[in-house]
């Protein structure tokens, strides 16, 4: 019953996303199509945080580093090296994943607080390098570029300069990435990751290679963040060092936890909520961030497992007879709770 409701909601949202360009056009709200695209990109970024924190139990405050690497890979590839659309995208991904492989090899030797701090330190190092390497990155001002065509066959040209093409390009990339995340999470590898999250000592005692699992999760998460960065560079025709600052990483963490860490679509929900709130309120009141902060705090206090956790609990209440609940028949409880609780007090000296 519950699975059916979830599937129905998912299909409905997907259908809405596909017809969105025409729907918004008929409502004369074309402006919202770009916001929708932005929500999709940032939810991919939040998914990167979620893979590490929600599934591998590593809280990273440095995902902005890989986001920025993807951005600069694309921007420098197009503006400085004169690459086409796809090679630039490939360069962005290669740079992001390469950085993640090297940084991860060092970072996953540490856990919890130490891991969080070293990811901040790494991202700050590259943030300052990007700031000072002005000839290459443009420093504070950033690098802008003009969009090369995605596909050229004779007279026919497909390019992201068309708003609808751009939207569908972003939607399909983000959709594919989320499908990949689904496959990863459901695979034996994903299960192994969750075992490491729950108890790394036990995981290593049953023969799992904890270091290798964490490292691969770090690289995969770096790839997701890098892909988000590539898309964002293409979306804005621009790359800037400011997107590498740790504050950007922090926003990813907040979106993920508000949406529900350790759930597949939590990051999308959290990102969508906060970006839509921002867009709606910023027109009404200059000091709208006060309200954003309030939304964040109230969500944490009243829905500590995130909005997806809240949704799951609500569905369980509605679909299960009370007797089942009393008998401990809440299949979704333990997993979500673990994400929220296991970070407590672990590894304290």
């Amino acid at each position, binding site marked *: 019953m519950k699975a059916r409701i979830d599937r129905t909601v998912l299909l409905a949202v997907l259908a809405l996303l596909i017809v969105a360009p025409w729907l918004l056009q008929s409502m004369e709200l074309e402006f919202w199509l770009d916001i929708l695209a932005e929500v999709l990109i940032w939810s991919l970024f939040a998914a990167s945080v979620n893979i590490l924190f929600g599934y591998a139990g590593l809280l990273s405050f440095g995902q902005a580093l890989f986001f920025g690497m993807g951005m600069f890979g694309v921007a420098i590839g197009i503006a400085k090296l004169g690459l086409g659309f796809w090679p630039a995208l490939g360069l962005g991904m290669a740079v992001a994943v390469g950085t993640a492989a090297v940084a991860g090899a060092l970072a996953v030797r540490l856990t919890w607080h130490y891991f969080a701090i070293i990811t901040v330190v790494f991202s*700050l190092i590259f943030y300052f390098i990007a700031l000072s390497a002005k000839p290459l990155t443009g420093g504070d001002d950033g690098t802008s570029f003009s969009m090369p065509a995605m596909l050229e066959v004779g007279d026919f040209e497909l390019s992201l300069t068309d708003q609808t093409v751009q939207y569908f390009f972003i939607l399909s990339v983000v959709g594919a990435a989320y499908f990949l995340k689904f496959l990863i999470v459901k695979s034996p590898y994903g299960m192994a990751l969750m075992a490491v999250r729950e108890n790394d000592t036990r995981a290593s005692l049953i023969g799992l290679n904890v270091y290798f699992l964490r490292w691969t999760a770090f690289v995969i998460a770096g790839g997701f963040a890098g892909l988000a960065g590539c898309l964002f560079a293409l979306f804005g025709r621009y790359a800037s060092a400011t997107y590498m600052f740790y504050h950007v990483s922090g926003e990813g963490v907040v979106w993920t*936890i508000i949406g529900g860490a350790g759930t597949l679509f939590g990051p999308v929900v959290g990102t969508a909520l906060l970006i839509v709130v921002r867009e709606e309120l910023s027109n009404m009141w200059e000091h709208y961030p006060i309200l954003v902060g309030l939304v*964040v705090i109230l969500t944490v206090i009243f829905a500590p497992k995130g909005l997806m956790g809240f949704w799951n609990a609500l569905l369980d209440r509605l679909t299960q007879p009370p007797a089942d609940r009393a008998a401990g028949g809440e299949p979704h409880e333990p997993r979500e709770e673990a994400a929220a609780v296991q970070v407590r007090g672990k590894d304290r000296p």
Partner: protein
Amino acid sequence: MELVVALAMNGLVWGLIIALIALGLSIIFGLLDIINLAHGDFFMVGTVLTWFVLEATGNYWLAFLIVPLLGFLLGALVERSVIQPIRGMAALSIVATFGLSIIIQEVVRAGYGAAPKRILPPIEGTIPLFGIEYDYYRLFAAAVSVVAIFVFFAFLHRTKLGTWMRAVRFDRDTALAMGVPARTIYMVTFALGFSMAALGGAVAAPITTVDFQTGVDVLPFCFMAVIIGGLGNLPGTVAAAVLLAVTEGVVTSFTDPTVARIVSLCLMSAVLIARPHGLFTGATR
């Protein structure tokens, strides 16, 4: 050579101020399990309150008294409203204090304005020191920080409240059973942390600029001091803050500040990887 001495001295002074702020961060983290992303903003609130006190009274010395007091009250308020419902859940505390940080910055931007301002130090003049002419006020700032740090340690080890704080940290349940009012202790600890950051702000206001965004720069520095000093190791935190700031000051005298920042961050990651439990392991908790 003179430049090296001057920048190393600046680093020492700044390190002592950071130590004061980082101690607040450390007790909040150690006792309440709260990873406080708003701590840099507590410092910023201190600098802004100092500016307001100066505007209202024209007396800088009053700020050293009023600002920590206001910080304490604000801290108590924040603990009761935001921190208490999520105490002990580190992951949620990150999100809640991130929200808090947004609110504080925006309230300050609304009330104080977005333009950075400068405050003149209450004591002017320089003094010859190690062959250079050094600002009086910076020495004074260092002295205030040192005194505050000593008072804090004395409070922690010589008073009933301080002993209670250490007791709750050591073993909450036993402390409760012995009649220690844990809830009050939590509130006092958080308020004290805010108050120390605010005092740091009052001390540092003439040295830095008064701006609603200064907290963002101070925060990573404080966290690094806490981690490198060893989690829960309070003297280690002080030593690490001073060490970090002096290193950065000395390196700045050879290259530009951004490169110096990169060098000190690289050193820090080396320390983290080689000695993940802090430079001073083996010291008391």
